């Protein structure tokens, strides 16, 4: 049953033990930020200006959709890897259903955004989940934080999209990510809804959190290619 104890709001992602441990173990840093790594090849917006000087229009819509696509790639890869190395299967029936459902949804979101962007879609970046996908508890805690972060990202970007249908479409993805977040929270014993309002985050704020995980890397690492430690 959800309790009153403190909830893992996204600002606390850095303090999540699972991620910290994984990062400490991994060592090193990526030289390029999330945005730079993800979007350098796409010639998208440098630094995603969010002020009045960033002109509203199809170009900015494309950049926002591409950022959302990178984020969905990040999530889809996370669930898919945990599934393929057996972590999800070992978590028990309730969590298994939850994690499989979320993985399927995130992969569908990737497909949806790629379809919309067509040839303007960025290529799938390289990810290194730093061992987090190998441990059921670390995986689940990180999933909670990522789902909450996606909510903040989409809530922040929906009003910045010029195309009216796209704004509505952003809502229909936003609500699914919020359902994921609430479900994840309840499974981990947190209250599914922390506050009456979800605080939208700017792209820069989201980027800082994502960069702190070092999940996004500029090239496939040896670590992410080797056989997983998990053998169950």
């Amino acid at each position, binding site marked *: *049953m*959800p309790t009153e104890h403190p909830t893992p709001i996204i600002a606390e992602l850095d303090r999540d033990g699972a991620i910290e441990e994984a990062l400490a173990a991994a060592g090193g840093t990526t030289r390029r930020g999330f945005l730079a790594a993800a979007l350098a090849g796409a010639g998208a917006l440098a630094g995603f200006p969010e002020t009045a000087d960033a002109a509203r229009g199809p170009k900015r819509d494309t950049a926002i959709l591409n950022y959302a696509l990178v984020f969905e790639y990040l999530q889809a890869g996370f669930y898919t890897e945990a599934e393929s190395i057996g972590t999800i299967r070992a978590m028990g029936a309730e969590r298994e259903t939850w994690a499989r*459902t*979320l993985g*399927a*949804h995130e*992969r*569908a*979101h990737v*497909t*949806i*955004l790629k*379809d*919309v962007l*067509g040839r303007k879609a960025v290529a799938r970046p390289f990810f290194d989940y730093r061992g987090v996908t190998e441990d059921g508890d670390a995986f689940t805690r990180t999933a909670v934080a990522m789902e909450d972060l996606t*909510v903040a990202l*989409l*809530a*922040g970007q*929906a*009003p*910045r999209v010029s*195309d*009216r*249908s*796209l*704004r*509505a*479409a*952003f*809502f*229909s*993805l*936003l*609500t*699914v*990510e*919020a*359902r*994921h*977040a*609430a*479900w994840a929270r*309840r499974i981990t014993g947190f*209250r*599914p*809804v922390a*506050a*009456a*309002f*979800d*605080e*939208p985050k700017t792209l820069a704020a989201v980027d800082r959190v994502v960069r702190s995980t070092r999940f996004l890397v500029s090239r496939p690492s040896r670590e992410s290619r080797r056989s997983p430690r998990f053998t169950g």
Partner: protein
Amino acid sequence: MAALASAPLVAGGLVVAGRPLAAAQPSPQEDERILNFALGLEHLQAAFYEDAVSRGALGGELAEFARVVGEQERRHVEVLRRRLGGAAIAEPDFDFGDTTAGEEAFREAAVTLEDNTVAAYIGQGANLTVEGVAAVAPLVSVEARHAAWIRDITAVNPAPAAADSAKSAEDVRSALERAGLPPP
């Protein structure tokens, strides 16, 4: 691919799943109309949970859900009312009948209420101005969290589709009516 069948976006066409939406151009006047519709839904939700709590038929997590969500819906009412100012509709009187009298009826009505509120907001996403979208975005996701929570309590899939569908105001009203809930 099943997931894509419910996709909100169709390449090229960019349509939202569900019924075709009203094509009114976004404007401050249109925002006022839509936000008042939203305010009606938030009033309905807040009153529904307050009624359920005061009738005392709920226990355990269900009671916690009604109390927590009821307080949040009341906050949504305040925010929308403040934004609408003098144009805000008055709080209607609601008769919840049996929907708040027992746990099973409450669960069913709450799932319908939350899912339809989510669909209503998505349905209006294309009709709001940018300012309107910014105003409701932080509420929309919270409604979806409520929906997932009550669905999970009820042991139905909290996130039944990869993309949530839109509903017109008219469809939302009839869904609520079918569930025995008063009109917003």
